[in-house]
């Protein structure tokens, strides 16, 4: 993210309504285009109003950025808008949340809502009622506008307003293309915008996808975009699951995401960490009303890994339940039917089998007798190239490894461990304070035990 920039997000609905006098394709396309054109004019009209969320400020972008609140004049820098936003939690007692903001580049985003002024000054015109008697198809929907712009914080409000209106117009253009491309007869798929944070120098982009068409059928579109943005062609960046998660939108499923980012780095001299890439959810004992205390640790580690593949866009299926995991193992012949509904443990071999069966993901199995430099090098390379969470099973326990760190000067090694044996609630403070997610030293390894590691590999796909 560019330092000194502010992100503004404008959302709202525009009503899309058109009359189709006939259903032959050229006519339909002409009418749809004309309707989008009209919406473009609507967006450039003086009646467009932007409401600054959580504040009493309203802006008229097509009237030079005129605003309601007296202290905001169009020449003021747009960063002044932030001061007018009333936040709910002024006192942030958790010191951890400050760290969270540092890591998340979209913290401090300005949200705006799209609105229309219906008051019309000027000449009075008595209402008239027009009755049309032509047969037609009426197409109606609301377009979910969602624009994000990144501007210099010193940029004036009037210029920023112009940028936002421009973003709306170009999004309408994108929506028109998507609508026409995927239209069948009179069925118009609703175009939906998604935001992606692509690696530098590209940054924030918005892509419009048609609703209801699964990612698997949009590969051509993604290929075009990958080459346009010069993205590598072997890993997903633009699947819907890759969409940027904004800090002010809580995850609805209740699982914690990436608890490890809230930890301090391991206390190592010249320690360089090699960490998991992307986003995973923390799965552990007792979640989803399943009492797997004492036997489900490998299942939970497997769920964490599945959540990673889902959130990086490799799969669309939801994280499997214990039942589904057991079912998969019976299907591949690894287990007998009596396995279903049991509390039998599984190991890294079974984890790899399920990843293959349910997600189409292959894994490398590594055999380790205890943590040492050899093992460390393999793990570090894994996090560099694949970046997936690792399931480790051995002795009587299973865990997830999220990273390793090594000190050049002392030769000490540390392991970032996510422990599935936690039985409490999704309390980030407890989980990080008590080390359920934390850096461990060599004491983590049992000298007398043998360990099998499952290292999931990224499929080569976009």
């Amino acid at each position: 993210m560019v330092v000194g920039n502010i992100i503004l997000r404008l959302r709202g609905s525009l009503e899309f309504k058109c009359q189709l006098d006939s259903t032959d394709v050229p006519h339909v396309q002409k009418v749809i285009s004309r309707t989008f054109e009209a919406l473009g004019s609507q967006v450039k009209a003086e009646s467009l109003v932007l409401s600054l969320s959580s504040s009493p400020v309203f802006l008229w972008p097509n009237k030079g950025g005129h605003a309601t609140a007296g202290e905001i004049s169009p020449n003021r820098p747009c960063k002044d808008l932030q001061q007018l936003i009333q936040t709910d939690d002024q006192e942030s007692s958790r010191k951890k949340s400050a760290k969270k903001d540092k890591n998340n580049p979209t913290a401090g985003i300005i949200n705006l809502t799209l609105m229309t002024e219906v008051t019309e000054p000027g000449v009075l015109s008595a209402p008239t009622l027009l009755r049309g008697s032509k047969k037609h198809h009426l197409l109606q929907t609301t377009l979910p506008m969602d624009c994000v712009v990144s501007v210099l914080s010193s940029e004036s409000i009037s210029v920023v307003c112009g940028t936002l209106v421009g973003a709306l117009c170009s999004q309408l253009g994108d929506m028109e293309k998507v609508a026409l491309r995927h239209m069948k007869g009179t069925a118009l798929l609703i175009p939906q915008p998604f935001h992606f944070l692509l690696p530098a120098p590209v940054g924030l982009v918005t892509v419009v996808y048609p609703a209801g068409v699964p990612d698997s059928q949009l590969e051509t579109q993604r290929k075009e975009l990958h080459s346009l943005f010069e993205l590598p062609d072997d890993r997903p960046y633009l699947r819907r699951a890759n969409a940027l998660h904004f800090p002010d939108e809580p995850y609805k499923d209740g699982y914690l995401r990436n608890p490890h980012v809230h930890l301090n780095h391991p206390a190592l001299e010249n320690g360089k960490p090699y960490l998991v890439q992307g986003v995973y959810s923390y799965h552990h004992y007792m979640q989803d009303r399943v009492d797997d205390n004492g036997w489900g640790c490998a299942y939970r580690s497997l769920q964490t890994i599945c959540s990673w593949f889902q959130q990086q866009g490799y799969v669309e299926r939801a994280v499997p339940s214990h039942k589904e995991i057991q079912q998969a193992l019976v299907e591949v012949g690894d287990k007998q039917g009596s396995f279903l509904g049991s509390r039998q443990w599984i190991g890294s071999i079974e984890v790899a089998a399920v990843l293959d069966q349910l997600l189409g993901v292959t894994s490398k199995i590594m055999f380790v007798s205890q943590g040492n430099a050899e093992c460390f090098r393999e793990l570090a390379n894994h996090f560099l190239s694949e970046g997936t969470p690792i399931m480790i099973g051995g002795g009587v326990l299973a865990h997830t490894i999220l990273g390793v760190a090594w000190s050049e000067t002392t030769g000490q090694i540390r392991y970032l461990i996510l422990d599935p044996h936690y039985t409490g609630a999704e309390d980030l403070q407890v989980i990080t304070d008590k080390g359920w997610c934390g850096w461990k030293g060599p004491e983590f390894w049992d000298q007398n035990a043998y360990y099998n590691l499952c290292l999931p590999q990224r499929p080569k796909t976009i």
Partner: protein
Amino acid sequence: MGRGYIVEDVVEKYLSNLSVPGASCVTGLLIGQSSSQRDFVVLAVRTPQKDTEGQGSPSVSRGAGNSLERLDVEWVTEHARQVSRMLPGGMSVIGVFLVTPPELSKEAQNTLRRLIFAVDKHISKGRLWSLTEEDVTEKVTLHICSKTRKVVCRTYDVRDPKSSAKPADWKYQSGVCTSWPLLTCSVGLNLVFPVLEMHVLPQDMEKCMKEGLQTWAKQIEDGLCLINGDAMPGEVELLGGQVKRSKFQSRSIHFYVVYITSGHLSPQAEPQSERRLTASVKVCSGSLTLKGMVQCRAYLHSNKPRAKHATEVIKRDVINTVSSRVEMFLEDLLMEGEDKGTVFVLYFSLGVR
């Protein structure tokens, strides 16, 4: 503790000047504004007489006998509805009055009760906005004895069909509404109502329009009013900071209202399960387009009104104005009859309130 009605002097004059020959009864409407603290009556108007073309005179009884029983309640309520349509925002029919000779004074209360419930029911029909918890549902009934000019004032809660009469104060004052703030705004309309294929009869068209208007009314209700260009929080006093004006000053304070809507129903109104993937398609045999602009006015009492009252009163006037225009159009449409194949028909509204 009963309600207190502050009544304009002119109302007293009007009521005392009413000509009530002999043993006849006169009904009429009381117009004003109710607030949680106080109620104001600014106008009284008697029910006009029906044409005496063999239909009899419902409000003026010629002979002896109980004219109260022959009272044409429907006529009174229809008059109330028409008057209601013509009132600016903030003003409504908040009660009825009845003048009777002394011998009918006893039954007068029953009649008044019947009248007020019927009037309220008829006026509320087809209303596109909903009452809130803060709305006052007590309406006033006034009985005047034609001989002694004695006045009996009672209120009924029209929300409760079993409610009993409660005593209320009736006080005359001059210049009650001279300094009432006025809110104005002009709202643009561009609404298209589809007429579905199977709906060709004028009655069906009425249904289509009413449904479409309901959606539009919800948008207006959810919309935001900027008073003099300012988004005032609801609890702020509208007249706060203004120099206290004497009641005898003739100029009232004028607020211009800017109306902003989000152009769609609030997200909470759309249940998740109904999120569509495609645009909805309706096969239509025609359409009705409502275009133009309506001027809306609303008055607010001057007894410490808050911004939220102002917003409410102008919103309701916007909805009522458009709603009654459309009603008038539909009445024309019904008279016109079934569509005889004309492609476009234009209806003009000549009345400007």
